């Protein structure tokens, strides 16, 4: 078989595997509950917005009272958030979770490529945490003819 064709097949196989893994990850993400019973932690809802040279992450930390109860750090290219709830949250409406107590939020998010880790800023207001991550963007000027 021609060498170029074998290379092409391998590349195709790699891409196919990557898509399959990505789909499996998305499915797992969807099916995964937002409760970590073992560690008594809740996963907060969050959204990511790209605005110019910044990536903004907004996290709903309902039940957290003060910024002093929030710990935010960068660990191996991941943003790691832990936040203590003012009082333990008990789920009384779901039999399987009855009696379980949740005392904190925990979230890990991959930083975007080019993130300037030392310049990340965060603010907390009304139970909402806003994290601003400046990112390096490669700019190339294109001449319009």
């Amino acid at each position, binding site marked *: 078989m021609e060498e170029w064709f074998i290379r092409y097949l391998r590349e195709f196989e790699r891409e196919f595997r990557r898509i399959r893994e990505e789909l499996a990850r998305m499915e797992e993400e*969807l099916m995964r*509950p*937002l*409760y970590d019973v073992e560690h008594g932690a*809740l*996963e*907060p*809802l969050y*959204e990511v917005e790209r605005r110019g040279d910044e990536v903004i992450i*907004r996290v*709903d930390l*309902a*039940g957290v009272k003060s910024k002093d109860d929030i710990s935010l750090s960068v660990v191996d290219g991941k943003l790691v958030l832990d936040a203590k709830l003012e009082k333990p*949250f008990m*789920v009384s*409406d779901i*039999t399987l979770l009855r009696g379980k107590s949740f005392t904190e939020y925990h979230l890990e998010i991959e930083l975007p490529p080019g993130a300037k880790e030392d310049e990340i800023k965060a603010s907390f*207001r*009304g*139970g*909402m945490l*806003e994290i601003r991550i400046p990112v390096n963007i490669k700019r190339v000027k294109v001449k319009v003819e």
Partner: protein
Amino acid sequence: MEEKWEFYLEKEVPENAYFLVGLPDVGLVGPISTSHLVKTYQLEELGYIDSPLLPSVILFHKGKPHFPIRIYGGYRGDDYILVLHADVAVPPAYIHKLAELIVEKGLELKVKELVLLGGIAVPNRMKIEKPKTYVASISPEVMEEAEKKGVEPLSDGFVGGIYAQILKEGYKKGLKTYALLSECFFNYPDPGAAAATLKALEKMINHEIDVSKLLEQEEEIRIKLREFMKRTMEAMRGSGKEYEFTVPALYA
């Protein structure tokens, strides 16, 4: 799969009821509002809407099974309040059929008006203390009437999702239909916006609605409904909701 929809009521509903609808959408404003109304007005469970096209779910509460889309009713003074409350999001492909069913049933029951309780997502919600509520209707008379009662008409922009379809169906079939939409978060449960929607409803139907408990429990509701919000956001993809931040070509 067969598109079979069932609207079952085990009791008769008097004519001229206010038919209030709370379907999952941005900020879950609809279901938070109807859930609060059912509790505050102590409404009785009367029936359900079901279809094989809906997620296969049954809810259990205090040992009793419930359909995920339920109908409640009861008197408030001389007025009968009929409430449709949903605990599952409606997949976009079935929005049209459900909208048709709700309007047809409203006409059959000879309801006075069909009121859609919900939210309209705004990007700066974090900075808004008191969300504004807008009324949206295809009928100019309804918009005028609401304005006279102190609810601001939605003058520009898109309304998307199932409420848009119900507004269209209601208009085409001659049923007085309007939506009360409060500024809300897009993908976080928003009890504050639900309280604003209920206060606007109070002006429209002239019955007091106490929202103090809803506001007191705001944080707890936000924590509890995270999972429901996540499922709703997934189900809403392609429902038309994405148009709400779009400038219509008409104004360009």
